[in-house]
């Protein structure tokens, strides 16, 4: 069954505990998480004529973009994480109830504003460590 994206919940905390309503990020309009694994080539002379592979380290990156909110304490957590180089814990519940908490470092913050638009904020994230399934 498909899931409408507007039910998605995005939370940010400074620790890896289950988020609650006050931890929900405000202003976010788009959120993506890309989970990857390294592919290790295990092909050798003893094998056949087709490459063989194994899976290596896991990794993930993410992006959250939307409206810049001057007074939002959750966006402030992301900015503080960038400035201090400390982990932020981003929980994405794709159907509003289940998902993962990702330990993330904030690598880039982009802000912008054109005279006829809203002020925008864009946060780029890279995972450091293992995610936690929620709930």
């Amino acid at each position, binding site marked *: 069954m498909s899931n409408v994206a507007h039910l998605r919940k995005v939370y940010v905390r400074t620790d890896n505990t289950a988020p609650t309503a006050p931890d929900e990020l405000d202003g976010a309009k788009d959120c993506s998480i890309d989970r990857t694994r390294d592919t290790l080539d295990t092909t050798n002379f003893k094998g056949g004529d087709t490459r063989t592979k194994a899976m290596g380290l896991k990794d993930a990156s993410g992006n959250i973009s939307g409206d810049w909110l001057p007074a939002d304490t959750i966006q402030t957590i992301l900015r503080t994480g960038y400035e201090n180089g400390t982990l932020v814990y981003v929980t994405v519940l794709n159907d509003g109830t289940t998902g993962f908490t990702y330990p993330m470092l904030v690598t880039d913050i982009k802000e912008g504003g*054109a005279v006829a638009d809203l002020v925008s904020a864009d946060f780029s994230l890279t*995972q450091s460590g293992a*995610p936690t399934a929620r709930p």
Partner: protein
Amino acid sequence: MSTAAHTGVIRGPGTSTAFTLEPTTKLTANTRYQLNTDAKRLLDPAVAVVVEVDADGAGAGGYVVAAPATYTVDYLYGIVTFLADQGAAAVVRVSGSYLPVIDLLGVTSWDFTASRTVLDDTSLPAPGGCRTKKLGLKDLTGSLAINELLTLDNDPGAGSLILQTVHENGTPFLFERSVGGKRFRAWVLLESTKLEGGVDALVNNNVTFTGAARAAGAGFGWEA
């Protein structure tokens, strides 16, 4: 609440102005003190700051110059942070120079990206089979779209703030974005200017900048 960009303003640096014995207000824990006058909080990093502490406030003792090794200075927002607790009664005053900020005219859009280098520190054993990382150096890039000529003097006073001159001379430029009651300040260099304008359009200048920290203080930062 979302913020319309047209309510904001982009500013640049004015002429460095000396001030003496400016009082401060304690922010937190007898260690952080901020200059009272908002207009004087952007400190000129090219001018040494003198910090004085009166340990007993209105008591019998007087002000004593604090050793620079005992505190750090946030030049972007005028905050002195002491390494040690100064005591509840202590009052702090500061002398130095501040930079007034001047509205840039004709700005139609702006953007900046604050980035950090990602350093992979994954080692054996990797818990959960996942990479671990640390953040390295900070940097900044950004741009402005301006429909005024870059030869325009933005300073309404006796000084001058001409972006063309700043670009040609390669001098440090203080970029300030102020919107929604919050400011972002950065020391930047103007990397490039691009003049555009077809026969049926306004003349437009695109200016790109890159972060360039000064010898003292942070290169850029958001207002708390």
